[in-house]
């Protein structure tokens, strides 16, 4: 038996975490990306820089600040406690919030590129045909930006699957709740169970390769709006 019950639970939990995070990121990332693509505001650069922070920050920095701010003395912790939710560290919800922040640029940037590539012309044409802004967004922007959404979803999902440092620092290694696959691999290595580490780690390599292959194949046959990071 190459994978134990705990390993399967960790893989399942990872997929759950990545799916939920991707969904939330598409919901929150789309308006942010739209705003960043359209705005002339002087806040465009600072907000864009904040969104990109997780690209350059080590996960230990994000994990450390999440641990402190979600804790009973931190501002997030104070807020959640006053709402009667307790603290979010060591919970699945806490991991989701951490992951949303951690993978934010991987969703916002491809979307922003896609929106920018569409330009003003299709929207102006829609407006002359008396389409309202919401109507135009759903019937014109969404179909045109579809490759961008696919790229954003794949990257957001894959990046969350690959998350380690943040989960390690705020998770507490609880089976079924916060023990994700990357942490489980670390557990196996730490406890010298190298055979099991290989099965999970090898699976991760294969998964990542397939994801990237899908991404690049889609890109070469798709439109220019699928480009990520300039």
């Amino acid at each position, binding site marked *: 038996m190459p994978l134990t019950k705990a390993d399967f639970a960790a893989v399942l939990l990872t997929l759950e975490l990545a799916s939920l995070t991707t969904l939330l990121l598409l919901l929150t990332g789309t308006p942010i990306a739209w705003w960043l693509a359209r705005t002339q505001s002087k806040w465009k650069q600072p907000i864009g820089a904040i969104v990109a922070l997780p690209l350059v920050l080590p996960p230990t920095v994000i994990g450390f600040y999440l641990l402190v701010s979600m804790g009973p003395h931190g501002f997030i912790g104070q807020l959640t406690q006053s709402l009667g939710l307790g603290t979010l560290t060591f919970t699945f919800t806490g991991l989701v919030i951490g992951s949303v922040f951690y993978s934010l640029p991987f969703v916002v940037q491809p979307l922003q590129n896609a929106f920018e590539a569409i330009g003003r012309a299709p929207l102006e044409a829609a407006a002359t045909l008396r389409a309202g802004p919401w109507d135009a967004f759903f019937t014109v922007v969404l179909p045109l930006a579809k490759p961008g959404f696919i790229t954003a979803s794949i990257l957001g999902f894959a990046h969350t699957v690959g998350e380690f440092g943040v989960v390690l*620092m705020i998770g507490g290694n609880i089976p079924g709740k916060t023990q994700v696959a990357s942490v489980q691999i670390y557990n196996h290595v730490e406890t010298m169970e190298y055979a099991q580490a290989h099965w999970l780690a090898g699976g991760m390599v294969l998964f990542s390769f397939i994801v990237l292959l899908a991404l690049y194949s889609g890109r070469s046959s798709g439109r220019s709006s699928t480009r990520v990071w300039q």
Partner: protein
Amino acid sequence: MHARIAALFAVFAISSHALAEQVQVAVAANFTAPLQAIAAEFEKDTGHSVVASFGATGQLYAQIQNGAPFEVFFSADESTPAKLDSEGLGVSGSRFTYAVGSLVLWSAKPGYLDGSDAALKANQYKHLAIANPKAAPYGLAATEVLDKLGLSAAVKDKLVEGQSITQAHQFIATGNAELGFVALSQVYKDGQLSSGSAWMVPAQMHTPIKQDALILKKGEHNPATAALTEYLKGEKAAKIIKSFGYQL
């Protein structure tokens, strides 16, 4: 006369650095503070310098097995150095117990623990932090204590695991876990608790946490390696080790 010659040599060693060597060591996380204190004294006394990497025992083992440049390994347990020894990565006969660890139940809140296990048994907390029992001897000792107190089932859903006791300590220090089992060395300095409140777990409640050191093959011919391990066995080091709450 001998003392004079020794002093002369010491001066020579320090002034010229001709005899000064560098020794690279891997150290289990719980021994971080004492080793830093010992290394400072060792450097002053011998002129050799110590470069230390701190980490979890299992992680350091993996690194040593894969060619890490460490010359001495200070493990948090007995079994890992024994394993490295049997795998031919250590200098045979160099293994020795440098400290016996003490386990403590600690809370960052002053007064939360009253020097007994009452608060642990009262079970009024949300999270109890321990180190991963499979990877860290202090974590294993903690589960033995919980077993002995008959609390294992009651606290099962409240346990949060750090990958090492450093992380378990971090969970408690930031208030995310109200209390948890850590190494006394992490919260003890100069013979007293440095912050928060604690219950000193009686040593007979768990398997003794014997911490062994081993000279690794890479350090076999480095004079500083032997100097450091001898220094660890000496009185000055013993005093420092004890001041951090270890037994010897």
